[in-house]
């Protein structure tokens, strides 16, 4: 079973996405900010990280800088999962190790599962 790390600060959304990914047959760990995400990332190995950008304590960019996934775990797919549609924060994240950007508000439950599965299978 593929293992996914979901990083999202909004509890309502975090619960919803966790439910969706689990019903898609994925193994999910959730973190509410970059610091927590870093803890999990260092303890376990993940096939995919769904990373929110705007978070308290440590934001998405901060996590990427600290974890440096391209160097440390090149086989982990990093999806920037944010409601930002453009801007320097998004560009920065993609440069720091994000593979792809998905706009939260665009995706329905099934669409999210399909996207994640498609990325996982193309690895």
């Amino acid at each position: 079973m593929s293992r996914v790390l979901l990083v999202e600060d909004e509890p309502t959304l975090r619960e919803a996405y966790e439910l969706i990914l689990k019903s898609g047959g994925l193994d999910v760990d959730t973190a509410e900010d970059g610091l927590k995400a870093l803890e999990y990332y260092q303890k376990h190995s993940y096939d995919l990280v769904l990373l929110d950008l705007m978070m308290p304590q440590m934001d998405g960019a901060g996590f990427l800088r600290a974890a440096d996934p391209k160097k440390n775990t090149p086989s982990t797919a990093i999806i920037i999962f944010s409601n930002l549609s453009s801007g320097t924060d998004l560009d920065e994240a993609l440069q720091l190790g994000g593979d792809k950007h998905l706009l939260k508000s665009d995706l329905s439950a099934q669409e999210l599962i399909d996207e994640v599965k498609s990325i996982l299978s193309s690895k």
Partner: protein
Amino acid sequence: MTSRKVKIKTGKAVELERYRLLVDSVQDYAIFLLEPDGTVASWNPGAKRFKGYEAEEIIGQHFSKFYSEADIKAKKPEKELEMAIRVGRLEDEGWRLRKDGSAFWANVVITALFNTKGDLQGFAKVTRDLTERKAMEDSLVEANKKLRLQQQELKSLNEVKDEFISLASHQLRTPATAVKLYLGMILEGFAGDLNQQRLLLEKAHESNERQIALINDLLRVAQIDAGKIQLEKEEVNINKLVIDTAEDQQDNFKKRNQKLILNLNDKVSAEIDSKRFRMALDNLIDNASKYTQSGGKITISLIKNPSDFQLSIIDTGVGIGNEDMQKLFTKFTRFQNELSDNVGGSGLGLYWAFKILEMHGGKINVQSQVGKGSTFTLCAPLSASV
């Protein structure tokens, strides 16, 4: 002035008498003579009115009596006479004192008088009381200050309002997204098969989509009002942009049995913020379709000019009346017409489109006739070099 009787004398005497009458008739100006040494030599009703002295009281006194202590210390009276002699004439505005010690703002003209031989005969002094004028000027300055303060207050209230809208719509986004996800999951079968539940859930889902669209509109408008939008311009093939946008709307046209015609006469490439420009165009095409009856026609034309391009969206719909025209690009405006009940939408789209075109250095023009249709023309510069 004692006798008013005009005695028939020699011509010169009569003339002098008439000048005396002239000066004595003036109440609105103080007109009087000074001796070469600065003592008051004559007086008139205007002088009495402004300065308060009777003729007998003041004639023979030095004219520095009209000046403030500070002016006297600074030797202002003497300096003015000197200047009048040198230049011939001196005009000044300043405080002068009345008999009772009160001050008034005066405009004073001192003219040095010389005889034919060039000897100083004295000075002519004309004084105007500008107290009223000064009071008006002062109150204007006060009013101006108050106005500026009010403007600042309004400006900051406006900013507070924008911040609030931005914050509120941002907060609303999260639960709206959650509802979308959960409803979506049920409808997609995550919780088993649906029967009668489906219709009700689909209605809820529809409403939720409208919530999300409205929240996004509010957020966009709040951002643009707060000046937080920065255009990301790049060279864009406008023809392709129009074609792509029109294609995305195909379902709407099919649903309403409407015909879309593209008259992209010229090839246009321009420096624009592709995403935002497309949203504005999207809104206009959507409006054209929404406000045109079933079976109607929408035409999009593209013309290139030397330094700008014009994109027109022409519909054969319900049209816009003159009164409604004024409010067309304001926020939350939606009009009552035969199609408006079926339309939906936040009333913010045109306002946003207008602002985006404005930010590009362009504009949106509208021509319309009720019952015949409307033409919305987007005009924008080809290059961002302005």
